[in-house]
């Protein structure tokens, strides 16, 4: 990270600055048009009013935000979304770390195969992923049959439409991002550090807590944020694998937008979602910089 920062500072003369902006201009314009304008439109919409017989009427009101932040149902939705995202992020990061740590120690063909497996979830669409898990979790699904076949269960088990299924599905989708974030940091660590730690008398467990974890905590924090942010915004997976009671912000936006045709309220929920995600990202950034002193 230090290297990139150093490189960016090199040759920052007045001429290179203007040239840099010039070169960046197309990309910035693209982002402004594709992301900036809709976001501004969304924010504007969130201050409008919802008439009983239409989608919105122009206004400047805080009514929608008051609803989102005081209505118990809305608050429960926010709470549930944050909770599911935190649980998913924790599981995803743990799983990714274990898998990345394993891949880190491999060479040659096996490593390539493992990397391909890790990329798997990114190669299929979210819908295919959902269909796959829907065939895995129900009482007539693969999981149920395997458990009976191996003798681990006596009766058929249904996990479809449970929080577990939702969390598994969400973790599966966000796993590749976390995995590659963590693996890239592991790849930058000299394996001799672990050998040296053992050599100096540390057991593998102490080596993990004293060397490996401190060196990867930055990566784990950004992987966690990634998974959290990703999960916060996902709507289909939670809906298709989770129970009806799993009412997430994504689902609520959809419901307000399409069923109740309350565009201003849907926009306000969306803005709150964006704000939560932004805060999470900023907090992770801040934590990393605070902890990363001295050895970044």
């Amino acid at each position: 990270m230090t290297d990139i920062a150093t490189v960016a500072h090199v040759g920052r003369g007045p001429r290179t600055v203007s040239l840099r902006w010039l070169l960046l201009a197309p990309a910035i314009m693209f982002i402004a048009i594709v992301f900036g304008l809709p976001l501004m439109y969304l924010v504007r919409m969130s201050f409008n009013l919802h008439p009983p017989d239409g989608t919105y009427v122009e206004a400047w009101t805080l009514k929608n935000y008051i609803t989102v932040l005081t209505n118990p149902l809305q608050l429960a939705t926010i709470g549930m979304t944050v909770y599911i995202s935190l649980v998913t992020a924790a599981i995803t990061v743990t799983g990714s770390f274990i898998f990345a740590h394993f891949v880190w120690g491999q060479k040659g063909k096996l490593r390539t195969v493992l990397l391909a497996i890790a990329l798997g979830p990114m190669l299929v669409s979210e819908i295919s992923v959902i269909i796959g898990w829907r065939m895995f979790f129900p009482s007539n699904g693969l999981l149920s049959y395997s458990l009976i076949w191996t003798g681990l269960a006596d009766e058929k088990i249904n996990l479809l439409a449970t929080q577990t299924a939702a969390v598994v599905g969400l973790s599966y989708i966000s796993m590749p991002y976390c995995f590659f974030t963590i693996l890239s940091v592991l790849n930058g660590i000299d394996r001799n550090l672990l050998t040296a730690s053992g050599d100096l008398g540390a057991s593998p467990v102490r080596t993990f807590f004293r060397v490996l974890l401190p060196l990867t905590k930055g990566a784990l924090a950004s992987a966690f944020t990634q998974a959290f942010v990703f999960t916060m915004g996902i709507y289909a997976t939670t809906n298709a694998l989770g129970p009806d009671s799993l009412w997430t912000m994504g689902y609520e936006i959809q419901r307000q937008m399409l069923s109740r045709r309350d565009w201003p309220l849907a926009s306000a929920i969306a803005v709150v979602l964006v704000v939560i995600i932004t805060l999470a990202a900023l907090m992770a950034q801040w934590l990393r910089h605070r902890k990363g002193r001295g050895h970044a």
Partner: protein
Amino acid sequence: MSSTLQLRRVVKRYGDSVAVDAIDLAVEQGEFLTLLGPSGCGKTTTLRLIGGMDWPDAGTIEINGVRVDNLPSHKRDTVTVFQSGALFPHLTVAENVAYGLKMRGVPRADISPRVKRMLDVVRMGAFVGRYPAEMSGGQRQRVALARAMVVEPSILLFDEPMSALDLKMRIELRSEIRRLHEEVGFTAVFVTHDQSEAMALSDRIAVMNKGKIVQIGTPIEIFERPSNEFVYTFVGESCSMNIDEQSELHLSQRPTSPQRLYLRPSHLRLVNGSGAENFVAARVTDIEYLGGMYRVHAEANGCRLFFDSTEAPELGPNHVVKIGWNSDDATYFPVS
């Protein structure tokens, strides 16, 4: 009284290849022993077996008379100084040096004075609060040295600790290690492919080739009485010629059976007339200026010879010269 380190018939295989081939080795208390050999000769593997970073396939390893070949690295009383230094980047110099003491359960109150004393010994006392990224390669290796020495292990292992440094730093750190060995008196097994390093540091050198120790002895023994061709050619510069009936050269004593003659370039000189016991007529092929001296390359009987001369040779390439040497300086090995 048993040796500090004792290896008996130690074998390590990787797949079909034998990395370490039934090695026997004993290192005494306070001794500085170097494993010297080309890359792939098994010297680093031997070191890893001693340190517990690899498991032998056969044989036993004892430290102070206790078998350790079934113990993991963290339960052996050895500490390694790695080629990369392997300092923990998230810890300061002081924390790095304290690491081994903490892991070995040394009382907290004793740690800080020991760390301070050891950093003073390696002349890094002013760097306690620095992180590894804020130091040069040579400084990092000094800290790595302190980190290993501070726990006072039975044996210090060195895995080519200077090969990543530039020449000047290497020579400086080399004399530093020599000084520390004299002052502290640790027992060391040092791995290197650099013969000058081995010569300068070691009480004894074990020359390794193809997984075996081919000769073990003091630096002087190794250099002056090499037991075979490999040692002769690996340690120090050398020239060689096949000697048979057809060879055109003047020898005071001609060997009876076909032999190969080995000579050190430092023993060769240009001679006039018959002013030497032994000489050969050679055609000069090239003269290099090496700064302060000239290296003369020549060819005789289809073999290449070279030697250094402080004065610029008057004869240029393609002239035929006489190169002479003393009988005592010649070494013969049977033609293999």
